[in-house]
């Protein structure tokens, strides 16, 4: 693969990651958000695959396969089940409305570009130029956690955050060692499973999963 094509494809995939993160804020349909997560997982696998081809690394191919299996198939599958069990199909009323959310996402992306400059300056290369996108994904994921009410949206926010961290790791170091990646992925899987059970319990107890109604935790 020629260098120019590699750069184009890598930036396209990374741009897709950022776009999918912002779209999570735009869509209210929970099933659409899960579909966006599938797209995002696939794009992350593409990034890993591109890095694997560029560096002739078999290990990265394995990591890419693992990312597809976990983030594009397994976790969205679990989320679909959560969605099927609950009657809540929409994020009815986010704490900050969609327009303001997207504007905030733009600001957060700008902040991400600003704060990752020292990091990029350390080792300027094709991959590290794209690191701000990883930061932006982390911040947007956090923002989803802060503003969305449904338990499922909370899980999605957490997954966005994790995807951002993984993307940053890919771009900065060319992928963490397979064992570490596997361990982190299993952790994420476990957390999603726990959150799934938790969401079901919350629904059973309170009749809905609006996190904002759980406010007994204060003195």
């Amino acid at each position, binding site marked *: 693969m020629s260098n120019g094509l590699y750069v184009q494809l890598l930036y396209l995939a990374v741009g897709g990651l950022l776009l999918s993160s912002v779209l999570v804020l735009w869509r209210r349909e929970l099933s659409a958000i899960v579909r966006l997560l599938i797209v995002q997982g696939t794009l992350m696998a593409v990034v890993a695959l591109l890095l694997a081809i560029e560096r002739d690394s078999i290990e990265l191919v394995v990591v890419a396969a693992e990312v597809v299996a976990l983030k594009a198939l397994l976790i969205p599958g679990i989320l679909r089940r959560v969605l099927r069990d609950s009657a809540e199909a929409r994020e009815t009323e986010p*704490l900050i409305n969609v327009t303001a959310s997207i504007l905030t996402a733009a600001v957060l992306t700008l902040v991400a570009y*600003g704060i990752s400059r020292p990091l990029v300056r350390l080792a300027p290369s094709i991959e590290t130029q794209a690191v701000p996108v990883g930061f932006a994904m982390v911040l947007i994921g956090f923002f989803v956690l802060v503003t969305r009410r449904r338990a499922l949206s909370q899980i999605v926010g957490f997954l966005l955050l994790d995807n951002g961290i993984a993307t940053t790791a890919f771009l900065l170091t060319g992928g963490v060692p397979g064992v570490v990646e596997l361990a982190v992925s299993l952790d994420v899987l476990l957390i999603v499973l726990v959150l799934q059970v938790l969401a079901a319990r919350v629904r059973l107890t309170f009749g809905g999963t609006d996190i*904002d109604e759980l406010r007994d935790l204060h003195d």
Partner: protein
Amino acid sequence: MNLVAQALLGGTVFALAGAVGAALTGPRVRAVVAGVSTSVCGAGGLLAGIALVDGQTYSATVPGLLPLGTAAVAGDALSGVFVALVGAVAVIAGIYSIGYTSPGSPLDHGPGSGAGSRTVQAVLPLFVTTMVWVPIAGNVTTFLVLWELMALTSLVLVLAEHRARPQVRTAAAWYASMTHAGFVAILLALVLFSSQVGGDSFAALRVGAAELPTTLRSLIFLLALVGFGSKAGIVPLHVWLPRAHPEAPSHVSALMSAAMVTLGLYGILRVGFDLLGGGQRWWWVLVLAAGAVSALYGVLQASVAVDLKRLLGYSTTENMGLIFMGVGAAGIFAADGDRPLATLLLAASVLHAINHTGFKTLLFLGAGSVLRSTGLRNLDSLGGLVSRMPITTALFGVGALAAAALPPGNGFVSEWLLLQGLIHSLPAAGSPSVLIAVAMPLAVGVVALTAGLGVATFVKAFGVGFLARPRSMAAGNAIESPVSMRAAMALAATGCAALAIVPAIVGPTLNRVAATFPTVCDGAPLQGGVTLQLTRIAGSMSPLLILCGLFAAALVIVVTLRIAGRGLPRRKALVWGCGGTRLDPRMEYTATSFAEPLTRVFDDVLAPEQDIDVTHHAESRYLIESVQYRQKVADRVEVALYPPLLGAATGWGRLAGRMQNGSVHRYLAFGLVGLIIVLVVVGVTS
């Protein structure tokens, strides 16, 4: 591995084994295991301390033992004195605790609580271990870790009886906040110091201190003074002493008051004289003033205190004040260049610290013996113990004599030295500086007044607490304490007596301590065997001869009276009966009534709250049915200074509480905003 290392490590291994053993065994065995391991650990410390003072040195580094740095130890003669003091108290307290915490005493509040509980017994040897190691610490990290461990373990021990009495929890909360406020100050001081010098070890600090700017050095010293002053119980940071000492089990009170508090002095000496090498004159003026205020305020509160252990707690503040006065005066003269005089004053301070450790151990153990036997700490309910607990009474008397600083007690020797140093501070020729001309006579006055009030305090503690008739059923049913407690008190009394009669045995020790401060001290301050001779000024004293003189005088008086009274008719009657035949304990002096003149004289300082309730007879206003009198002497410093501080802290807490409405989203938002702020700060600054 030399003797110091062997003794210290051996003692530590014993203490750890004792802690594990105490955690695993039943109550009766537990008391023995904890007590013996504490004593053995103390004996190791005593041995190591003596070897260090004797000229051996010990330094070692263990990388990787502490998470954020290297563990380093370095002992010199100064460390040696304090290690030996801690060790000696631990030996005695360990023996004492075997009897004190054994099951079946009136203080035994059932399984799982009190001084005999599993936790308390297991923590006791650990507390002693950390105290033994604190003066040996060779770098900032090790010192801070050990200091904090010492605070935490002592806090667990203070909390021992929290199930039986709720006020224990309040006392522990005060102690925890004061000791942690002090720790923060010490942490700031030492971390600032080491970051500016660029080294962590005390050796590096010592070398680098000279190049620091004066303002920075002053800041470090002031922070250290606040931190170590709060541990030493210097006014206005003394508030935890009269609370925590009464509520802790008595052997723990003895360890805290006699050993741990003294480590505050160690900190000041180490940082001020050793690491910073003396420094500015105004630092030491501050120390002198703080010491003078503490000495006066402590002894005044002690003289009106009714709770025996609270009285002893205030007496600790008083003695630490005297010690700090000596240290402050030594610093002033060192800054002025009169190093021989500084040496004498420093030696007097360290000697008073040694003496205070001796008699305060004895007194707290005596108070504990009374408490275990009667369940009482209130002097107004005690009395009559001389015939019921004769050995405890006699031994407490020895301690009271020493604490009152009367000959032939050991407290007298060091206070005499301190007074000699202060009195002879005016130069023989030429006029002194204004500061010295004003401060030193005032200091002499403070020491004299403190000594006088100290006599009244301990006459009250001994006379009202132990003599006359019992003022309550509990005091009347007192029985003598177990043999291990009596043995421990006898050991402490022997130490006090040795220090009182031949104080010259510690002369070489004091000379070696002085030699560890080459920039402050010069020469050997004390010489002589039976007679104590001062080198800088013309002064000498022989405690042994004073004792012989007192004994001879007493003998002469008794023999003369016998001879003069021969042939006169004898009549048996009630002592102090005043002609009456029916004596009631309610006719006796109480602690409150004994201190009443003092309360009156120092009315403006103490501001006692008095409350008189007169109930008239139903038939006639002119007849009185009953009169009730209540008096409470609050700690004025505490009442004036601490409520605003506590109010501010509470207000701050309320403000923080308002930020929390329980919404998960809000907490997440705090996290996001915090993350962005941190990232922006990092991004902008790098």
